[in-house]
């Protein structure tokens, strides 16, 4: 049985919370879904329980927004994953005490991103992890990812995380910023400074790092990691404009943990399944849905907001969410007269955030050199343990597209459905075959979005399988 609902918002990060609030304020019946136990997404990530100390400013902001969302009457389905979607606006769910299938009049997708990684020699050693994973450990569990930490990547979020780690008692050995900001950033410098300050939570992050004499090196990146069983040291180097290591500039740094913060890739699978036309925008993270000024995709009634529709940060996600919430509610018949005017009134805020997004993209989009670090033994696909040599062999046999290489090597066919490695493989194939990443193509995810229990899909508990009729 398919349960009808009015508006569904998928993802309870800043974008989704803000969309749910705006739609509910307009009078719509809103159902908000997130696979996490707590609302908040990445930015407002809440501590797992109260024992874990004082909440941060983000967490307090998140709680305030969440309280508004609750009092506006939004229904929240926590620990519920949307694993399938079809063009009839039908969503398949896996969660406790929720229907298995719902059909919505309008859907707002606020599904966020996953993190971009880089396949350098040693990147699969224990001790290497993404910045987001470290942040989750810290925010939810108050656990430090290691003792001597090296941050490599790009963008101001690295500074925030470094400061958080230092305050929590970790030793940060260095923060490497891949972008040559002083070379490329000059024309953005004033705007950058203002925004940087905002993002980096005032000058606090700077001060924290400065007072601990933590080196912050612009135009530097990782080349390899090594160690016996576990990361013990990193080789780092100066990068040229394409992010390729400059020969002869290498240095060694001792550390037990390396955090990768190379930016984000929009999580757009649901938009694709719902029928939205996609566009390839590498500077906004990759494939994203085409949208109009109401945040509506090419499919009427399907909206997409936040980082999942083009990486732009929490503030942009909040504005986009509000616009989509108003528009979706108008579409299902609420405050139709006022919607256009209210959306117009958000235009200045939207423009400001979009400008920031542009500048951010211009500065912090990794160059092709990031994908040229691996050697033959480097693993590209962790789930299936496929090395660069295996991919090269498939190319030698005749494969030229990601589809073919996938079928020959099993790259990207593991449990993560290519979320971790699709961009790595596409970039490597592009380089090895002299094509553009767009020509090589990305892996198209297939339902279920995440590995999903058969009993949940069949909506038949295990003990009833014996009697249930086919």
């Amino acid at each position: 049985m398919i349960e009808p609902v009015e508006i569904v918002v998928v993802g309870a990060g800043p974008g989704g919370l803000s969309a749910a609030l705006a739609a509910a304020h307009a009078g719509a019946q809103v159902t908000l879904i997130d696979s996490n136990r707590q609302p908040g997404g990445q930015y407002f990530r809440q501590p797992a329980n109260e024992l874990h100390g004082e909440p941060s400013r983000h967490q307090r902001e998140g709680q305030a927004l969440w309280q508004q969302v609750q009092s506006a009457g939004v229904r929240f389905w926590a620990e519920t994953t949307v694993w399938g979607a079809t063009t009839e606006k039908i969503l398949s769910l896996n969660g406790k005490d929720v229907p298995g299938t719902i059909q919505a009049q309008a859907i707002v997708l606020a599904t966020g991103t996953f993190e971009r990684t880089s396949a350098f020699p040693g990147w699969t050693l224990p001790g290497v992890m993404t910045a987001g994973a470290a942040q989750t450990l810290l925010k939810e569990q108050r656990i430090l990812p290691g003792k001597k930490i090296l941050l490599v990547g790009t963008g101001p979020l690295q500074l925030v995380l470094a400061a958080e780690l230092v305050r929590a008692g970790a030793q940060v050995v260095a923060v490497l910023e891949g972008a040559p900001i002083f070379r490329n950033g000059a024309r953005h410098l004033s705007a950058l400074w203002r925004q940087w300050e905002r993002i980096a939570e005032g000058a606090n992050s700077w001060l924290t790092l400065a007072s601990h004499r933590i080196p912050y090196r612009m135009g530097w990146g990782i080349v390899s990691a090594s160690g016996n069983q576990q990361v013990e040291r990193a080789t780092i180097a100066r990068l040229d404009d394409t992010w390729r290591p400059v020969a002869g500039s290498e240095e060694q740094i001792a550390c037990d943990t390396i955090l990768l913060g190379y930016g984000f890739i929009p999580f757009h699978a649901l938009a694709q399944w719902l029928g939205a036309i996609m566009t390839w925008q590498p500077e906004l993270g990759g494939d994203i849905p085409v949208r109009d000024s109401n945040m509506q995709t090419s499919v009427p009634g399907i909206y997409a907001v936040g980082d999942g529709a083009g990486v732009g940060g929490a503030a942009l996600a909040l504005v986009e969410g509000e616009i989509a919430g108003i528009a979706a509610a108008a579409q299902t018949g609420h405050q139709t007269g006022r919607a256009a005017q209210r959306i117009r009134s958000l235009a200045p805020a939207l423009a400001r955030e979009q400008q920031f997004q542009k500048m951010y993209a211009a500065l912090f989009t990794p160059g092709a050199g990031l994908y040229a670090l691996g050697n033959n033994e480097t693993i590209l696909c962790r789930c299936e343990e496929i090395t660069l040599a295996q991919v090269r062999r498939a190319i030698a046999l005749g494969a030229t597209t990601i589809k073919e290489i996938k079928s020959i090597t099993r790259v990207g066919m593991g449990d993560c459905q290519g979320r971790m490695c699709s961009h790595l493989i596409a970039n490597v194939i592009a380089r090895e075959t002299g094509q553009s990443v767009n020509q090589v193509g990305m892996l198209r995810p297939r339902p279920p979005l995440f590995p999903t229990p058969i009993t949940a899909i069949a909506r038949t508990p295990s003990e009833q399988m014996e009697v249930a009729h086919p």
Partner: protein
Amino acid sequence: MNASRKMNAPVVIIGGGIVGCAAAYYLSKSGVQVTLLERSVLGDEASGRNGGGVRQQCRDRRERGLAMASVRLWQELQATLEPDIEYRQGGNIRLATDEKRLSDLRCQSEEELQDGLPVEMWDQSELRRRAPYLAEIFLGAKYCASDGMANPLLVSRALGWAAQRSGARILTHTEAFQIEIQGRQVTSVLAKDAQGEFVIETPQVIHAGGPWTPHLSQTLGVVVPIVPARSSLAITQRMPRLFDEFVSSHDLGVYARQAREGQIHIGRSVSEPGETFDQTTPLPTIEKLARGAAQMIPALRGSNFLRTWTGTLENTPDGIAIISAVDGIAGYLIAAGFSGHGFCLGPIAGKLLSEWLVEGEPSMSLREFRLARFQK
């Protein structure tokens, strides 16, 4: 049209599924410099998405001989192709939950034994002994030890690339949109790729376009009765080795096999209604796959689906393929409409097509597969 781009080929194969790739493989081995046109990449359609079953038992009697001959080719291909196509003969179990189905299977087994296909009937206790991983709802089964499976993702590509190494010209991302004749003889194929349209002059076409065959044959005025249908599969996360056979139950509507890497593939053994080229996977179908699989193999009740996908079947009115010349048109062979059995039959179809062109006639009779059978 840009007439400046022109090629020649003694044989043009249209379609890079398993049938087209096998034809290219055997023709190239015989020294014929074929050109193969594939609108996407090799094996991107049913040939790369199917259940992977290489089965001789429970076939239409008219097809049985071809299936048995194909299995001999599969053994050779496993030994020669690169990459490894993961063909192995783990056996095939066809299950029955009621007496009616069991007695149908028994009748069929007698016919199969007569035709020289070794099969066994298992009663309930034999089934429990031989396949303890199956649920206890089954009354018995028919078993064929020489049946097996291969990895569909690899086979067409391995065949096509081997053909390429023996001199075949494989043009992917290239679509044939017209076949031209003069008098009663094929003269050329018109095709387009990313650079635009071009002409391939040729006296001989093999048309192996799967369910899309009727569209193009229409340009010759030839009506080919093939209709598309969708069929979906699901795959679990890796599991410890549970079974080697390809098992299916028409009563539950599912079949299953465990791939070399441990994932279990689950497909629908009954076809979905409706003529469609749609390749999205319907959510109710995913549900049926999950339920059927868990009912058939209890160990799957604790497993996760990792992925699902859908391919397009190519059904003819009588459920067997068309491997045929066309009356009144010289130089045009059709090999399509394998009606859901073409993975198993692909190698033999390719081999016979090659013999037809190289030696003047195939070594096995293809009478039952003539297009003219529909024109009565």
